[in-house]
């Protein structure tokens, strides 16, 4: 298995998204977003949900670390969370 394949996360059988939504890693810093869908496997989805990153959750994207590093988001009602870029790609959001 190549590293690329290993990264691909199984998608949940949920309704496909309209194209207006973007992935969390594509959002510019300092924007406020609402989570529309988390397309990762069930373990990571649960972990994210426990920290408040779940459908309907509101996030403030603080910044991205250089060298392909993680994305720092402030979660409403929770703490700041650093999410790896690979995982952030599977968090679909709507810019508020």
């Amino acid at each position, binding site marked *: *298995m190549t*590293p690329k394949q*290993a*990264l691909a*996360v199984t998608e*949940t*059988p*949920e*309704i496909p998204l309209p194209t207006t939504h973007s992935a969390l890693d594509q959002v510019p810093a300092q924007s406020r977003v609402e989570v529309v869908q988390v397309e990762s496997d*069930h*373990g*990571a*989805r*649960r*972990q*994210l*949900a*426990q*920290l*408040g990153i*779940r*459908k309907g959750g509101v996030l403030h994207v*603080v*910044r991205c*670390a*250089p*060298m*392909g*590093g*993680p994305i*720092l988001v402030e979660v409403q*009602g*929770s*703490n*700041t*969370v*650093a*999410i*790896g*870029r*690979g*995982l*952030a790609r599977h968090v679909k959001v709507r810019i508020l």
Partner: protein
Amino acid sequence: MKTLAERVLPAAGCCATCPQRAPSCGVMTVALIGQPNCGKSTIFNAVAGYRSATGNFAGTTVHLAWSRVRVNGSQLELVDVPGIYSLTTSNPTEAAAKRFLLEKNIDVVVNVVDAALLSRSLELTLELRELGIPMVVCLNMADEAQRKGIAISPVKLAWMLKLPVVETVGYRGEGIRELFAQVLAQNGHAPNGAEALRWHRDVESAVERIALHVGNGNGLGTLPKRFVAVKLLEGDEELAAHASAQARSMAQKLRELSASRGRPADSVVMSERHDRAMHLFEQSTRVGRPQRDAREKLDAVLTHPVWGYAVLVAVLGGMFWAIFGAGGFLEAKLLAAFDWAFLRMQGWFVPGSLGFTVMKGVWGGIVGGAAIVLPYLVPFLFALAFLEDVGYLPRVAYLLDGLLHRIGLHGTSVVPILLGYGCSVPACLATRVLPSPRDRFLATVLATLVPCSARSTVIFALAAFYLGPAWALAIFGFNAAVVLASGWLLTRLWPEVSAGMILEVPRYQWRSAKVMARKVWLRLREFVTVSWPLLVGGSVVLGLAEHWHLDGYVNAALSPLMALLGLPSAVGVTLVFGILRKSFRC
């Protein structure tokens, strides 16, 4: 704290043997349970004395800490349980905490809640409530919640949850006495009657349908049926293994039905819990304007793509220079003082006699510990305690995640590796918060390659003292390169990209020098009580070996090995002692 100490005193004779004694003790067991980094260990230490190391990052506590304490005249067994986000676990530490909770006889659960993160934390509270164990909610860090503009009504929350709620500020010892008064009052009173906390009718009916089959000869002990049914619906494999076949198949059917409607059952249950928690939060709190403080601006610098790294280099470099500066200064002064004292004592013995050799050996060991090890070890442990308590380590993990990805690890591994500079044992234990076995293995290997405080002391005390600080810094730099290269090599042998980091970055916290000093002492105690006496003993043995001219034989026997290592044969004995030291320290 004084008034607290009068009524809440650790009972004498309590020790690490308690886990074995606990089931037969007959005293009530109280477990501190809550989400990671909510201050369980701080509450534990406020009652039991400093026995469980605290820190400001998720997963400071990776094993259960026990203590027998006396509260208002009653003895109780207090257990500090590692943090869990929910009763569905994702790493070995959480799994161990959950097993403890489900399998041991706990009399009262103290659910410690970070009041500043109330809405999120209530989800665990609701889940714990289902266990049917008498329970008290401890709203910890009440001062932080106020600062965030969250005004919580404990009375309303208690009324809605049908559980006692006590506000505390753990590190100042506020509210601890009331908390334990409630614990004693709750013993034997299981939570009941919170109909308002029920879920939507369709989910409830699914739970009921599974619960009907749960009771039939299951191996789940005294767990409430509803709790087991919910866990089966969520797909908890551990519990499913013990449940009856009918319950399992019913849960499976309902899970498939739910998935076919586009919503996996575990998501449904999670959002039900979330809805209830949000409802409780909204009803019991008023959210006002947060007080702005400097901490927010601090993060803008410390996680900045340029300044963040500059600060990281400055912090680590500054730590190095401070430890070297303080240690070098104290070492020189102390050595001079000990030399002066030695010259005075020399007159009492006949030079070359056995008594003189023994005295010289004992003296050498004492001086080695007091003048060479402690001047560097104490400032080092203070610096590490400061970085841990203030909450800087998760920021370092954030900054270095990108770099570590190049060697196939993610930033979370930074925490155990940095802790390795303190001691390898807690560093290896800290890897238990990493989710995948591969990441744990790699981080463990790399953490042991990092020089621990005992080895760092040698680098500081010898290399820096005799060769100059630049050489000592070069040794640390070379070691970092070796660690990175080893990581790179290991990931080539075990190629698998880790799933990606999810790391909670906590608020900054300032801790008093007293709290840090207690933590330093907790770690220093090992050196003072174990390593130092051995150092003195070793020094005497070395002296006697020289006295009877035995060292020559040892050196001769080891000379082939020394030749292989490219070392002069005279260091043979020293190396044996080095190995001994390594095996008893760290």
